[in-house]
């Protein structure tokens, strides 16, 4: 099984280095945000204590690098399915869970790798963390990449085509980024957004990264809102739950078959004259009861509405609600997704 994971990881890395546009945007996007948004906000938000706004923003930039990297990996999985290569994985003698884990691991490693490329920014921006703090940051990067990679796999299992990615971008990635404390302390957001802030895994990722980087440099209430221990707990729990959900969704053979079948009509059109769709010879009298109509992807799990988010102090409540909400969100909008979203 290890060799299979290794094979998938190697393939993802080779692809990453061959897609020059992706490489370029990997470098350009975070720097653009850091320089343009960073400089702009610096004028509006006065520096607190000894920390400049750009230093405050840095963990947010790492979160952004990882967010885009993992979501692009999820997108690559969708395009793998659309253009065929995923079949090499599906037809190999591997359990579906190993296939999902291999994809998650490669997405995680790619996310860590890209974030590590930006580590020099710490010193360029004038922060001087201890070696220990850098190691802690690396751990935080790894955990953040893991949780976002598994979220990406849940998305990938339900997205039908890469066009839907526009929806993911508008309705998931940007809200996640803006709701986390990446750009400003989320505590400044209005109360009705706070449940979303707490449901956003990126909140805990950014929070955890701020601990080693800004410890003691910044007013405590503005840098980190939670204890590192709590952040780690949330991130680990979310990763496990999300990976489990992804395995369930990918392992569901029926669902896979249906997705694979989406190209059957296309193949039919290619060769020969058009044929009428096969009709049951007799109006289904015999045979299994008809399956529920399956055109629209039903939500994987009905989003169990947990009644009002419990106070932050409760350990298991809010974090566990988070992955469910985020997992359900994409399917919610994919049903009502219209051309308008893509047209933008």
């Amino acid at each position, binding site marked *: 099984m290890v*060799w*299979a994971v*290794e*094979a998938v990881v*190697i*393939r993802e890395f*080779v*692809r990453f280095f*061959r*897609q020059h546009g992706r490489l370029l945007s990997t470098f350009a996007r975070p720097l653009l945000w850091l320089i343009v948004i960073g400089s702009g906000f610096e004028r509006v938000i006065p520096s607190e204590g000894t920390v400049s706004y750009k230093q405050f923003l840095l963990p947010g930039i790492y979160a952004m690098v990882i967010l885009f990297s993992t979501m692009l990996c999820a997108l690559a999985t969708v395009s*793998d399915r659309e*253009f*065929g*290569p995923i*079949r*090499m*994985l*599906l*037809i*190999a*003698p*591997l*359990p579906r869970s190993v296939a999902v884990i291999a994809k998650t691991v490669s997405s995680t490693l790619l996310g860590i790798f890209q974030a590590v490329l930006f580590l020099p920014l710490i010193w360029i921006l004038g922060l001087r963390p201890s070696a220990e703090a850098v190691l802690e940051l690396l751990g935080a990067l790894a955990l953040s990449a893991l949780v976002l990679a598994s979220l990406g796999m849940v998305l990938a299992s339900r997205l039908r085509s890469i066009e839907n990615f526009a929806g993911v971008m508008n309705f998931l990635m940007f809200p996640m980024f803006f709701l986390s404390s990446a750009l400003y302390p989320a505590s400044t957001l209005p109360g009705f957004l706070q449940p979303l802030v707490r449901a956003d895994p990126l909140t805990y990722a950014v929070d955890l990264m701020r601990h080693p980087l800004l410890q003691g440099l910044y007013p405590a209430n503005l840098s980190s809102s939670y204890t590192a221990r709590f952040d780690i707990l949330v991130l680990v729990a979310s990763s496990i739950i999300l990976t489990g959900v992804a395995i369930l969704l990918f392992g569901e*053979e*029926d669902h*896979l*078959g*249906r997705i*694979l*079948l989406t*190209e*059957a009509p296309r*193949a*039919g059109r290619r*060769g*020969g*004259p058009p*044929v*009428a*769709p*096969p*009709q*049951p*010879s007799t109006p*289904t009298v015999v*045979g*299994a009861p*008809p*399956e*529920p*109509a*399956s*055109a629209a992807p039903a939500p994987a799990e009905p989003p169990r509405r947990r009644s009002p988010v419990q106070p932050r102090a409760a350990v298991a409540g809010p974090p566990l609600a988070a992955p469910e909400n985020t997992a359900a969100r994409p399917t919610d909008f994919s049903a009502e997704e219209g051309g308008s979203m893509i047209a933008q």
Partner: protein
Amino acid sequence: MTRQTNWCTGRCYPWPDDGSSVAAMTVAPAIAASGLGRDYGSIRAVDAIDLEVRPGEFFGFLGPNGAGKTTTIRMLTTLLRPSRGSAQIAGKDTLSDPLGVRRSIGVVFQETTLDVDLTAQENLRYCTRLYGLSRRESELRIDEVLRLFSLSERRNERVRSFSGGMRRALDLARGVLHRPSILFLDEPTLGLDPTQRRRIWGFLRRLCSEDGTTLFLTTHYLEEADPCDRVAIVDRGRIVIAGEPTVLKRALGKESIELSSEHPEAVAEQVIRLTGIIPRIRDSVVSFIVEDAAAVMPLMLPLTEQDVEVRLTRPTLEDVFVSVTTDREGSNGLGG
């Protein structure tokens, strides 16, 4: 609902018995399916497929588009859960032991599976690693299949730069890389030129006869299904006829009369008027099958005076195919 009526002659023919059921008793079948079916919502893609393929057999699975061939292959290769029935591949059940099944099979899909951003060699290496072959073993086999398909020189080029034929060859190389005992091929020669098709068929025949690999393939190039040991013709999710190609052809009728003309429709009308048989038109050729050509040929005499070329041939698998599959486009079966 049986569809054994011969639409050309309106005559029924017996289901050919080639004795395969007897032979299958002695050896465990490579592929066995009973009552295998699959619905998509209210659409019945595959009704109920019963089949048995012996180890080392070259088995052709034919049928018009939308007949359920691809769905059947997906169920047999564990990619799709059947709605009813069961299937055993190499003695392993597709539902209870999908890994065991996937270990014994190779699959060449209708669409490509290659990653165009990787080189030929990288694609193959990815596969050998997924199958857990050691590095040394994997390099040996990659060299071997690349040589076999004359792709050695381009092994380090990205698949993006490959032509359709080269991609197909590479896909096939990928399918046999781990030396499966059973190879499934869904339209393996789709979109290839005749030379490439011949080469791939040559390779498949050798694979079957020399290595004893069981081949299960779908195709709609019917003339290519001739070398199959046995074929099954599927229509509307059911096997309508199965047997050796020669037996099927014999069952259909003895002789086929072909009339070539620049006005096939007009010729067809005359054939109907002269003989009462509804012929089939394909391109500029009008053809129909008769029991005794000597009795019918004299009736064709008026046609020869109109620059119509008359030929007498043996029925082809295509004739069998057209006669048993549901005619969806009117009486002349503009198939193919």
